């Protein structure tokens, strides 16, 4: 048996022999191994998120990205102003979901035989929105209106124009009449 062959056998024996450990060391090592295995996908994701990476980017791509961010911010501010405007509205009128809003008009006209609603939303056409008598002397109609400021009035029996007593008043206009005003909220 050569010295070289003898040395290989000694090395093999040494490697197969476990090193001497203190009594609880093996248990601690196995606990750590099991904990690493349990981390699974979440642990790997956390490791990926917190591990530093080197990123390279061309100057043109960086400029394009910055421009996109600026456009997003400006767009969000513009939309926010639009929503603020649409949200600035008056009254306890019922609201719809988007675009036009269903607005209920109610007027007390005990002696009237017919009542019409006229306004800038129907070309001041007395035949466009007749009201229904919902109780003795109480007339009502629901009209979808675009968000914005609208002037209107009621016509009793096709002749007598009256404002809505519960609504805001517009200044008495060039025709010597004070219309009522409704400011319609937009969707929000």
């Amino acid at each position, binding site marked *: 048996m050569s010295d070289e062959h003898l040395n290989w056998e000694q090395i093999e024996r040494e490697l197969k022999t476990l090193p001497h450990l203190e009594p609880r060391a093996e248990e601690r090592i196995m606990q750590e191994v099991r904990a690493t295995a349990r981390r699974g996908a979440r642990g790997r994701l956390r490791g990926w998120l917190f591990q530093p990476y080197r990123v390279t980017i061309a100057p043109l791509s960086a400029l394009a990205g910055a421009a996109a961010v600026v456009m997003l911010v400006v767009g969000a501010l513009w939309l926010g102003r639009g929503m603020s405007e649409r949200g600035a509205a*008056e*009254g306890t009128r019922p609201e719809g979901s988007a675009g036009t809003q269903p607005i209920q008009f109610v007027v007390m006209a005990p002696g009237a035989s017919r009542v019409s609603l006229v306004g800038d939303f129907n070309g*001041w056409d007395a035949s466009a929105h007749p009201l229904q008598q919902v109780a003795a002397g109480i007339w009502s109609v629901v009209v979808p209106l675009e*968000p*914005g400021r609208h002037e209107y009035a009621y016509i009793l029996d096709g002749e007598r*124009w009256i404002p809505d007593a519960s609504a805001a008043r*517009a*200044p008495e206009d060039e*025709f010597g009449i004070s219309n009522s005003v409704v*400011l319609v909220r937009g969707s929000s």
Partner: protein
Amino acid sequence: MSVRWILLVAALGAPQAALAQERSLDERFDPRTRAAILAVVDSARADGLPVDPLINKALEGASRGAEPERIIWAVRGLARRLKVARDALGTQSTEAELVAGAAALYSGIAPEKLEQLRAADPGASVALPLVVLADIVERGVPQDTAVSVILTLAGARVADDDYTALRVSVAEDIQAGAPPGVAAQTRARGILLGVRQDEPRPDPR
């Protein structure tokens, strides 16, 4: 529907709506009156002003049985006030703000007051404050008092509901016999006290 389609439909729909409104003038006016109204409308459109309020003013006059000359005069007057309101409130103003501003001007409010109102809370819509301003002036609140009250509330950045509450309560007070100016000042003071009470108090520690 994508944003692109919504914008396309809106872009195509808006001129169609305006054209439909202009066509309605054909049925309600003789050719001479119609031509005079359309001249004002075209001029306003070229100036970047909203034209629907002008057509509506003409239609309102026709429905009320007003004389053609009076209707033309009313449309011209509104076009002038819309321009003054736009100059005072800014070119980014909405149609509702411009029409409300024109109404406030018609009730005697100076253009400078519109500028001050816009400056009091630049990010907010002035449509509702202007509607309430015109309303309380119409109900008899002296102009100076009404302007002062609305500017103070705008400066305090009160909520929309507070403007509505002011309008309703001032109308009730006046109906109950209160002097209009006193009613407006008292109710505005109450709103401001409410706003201040709602503000978070400093920590006494």
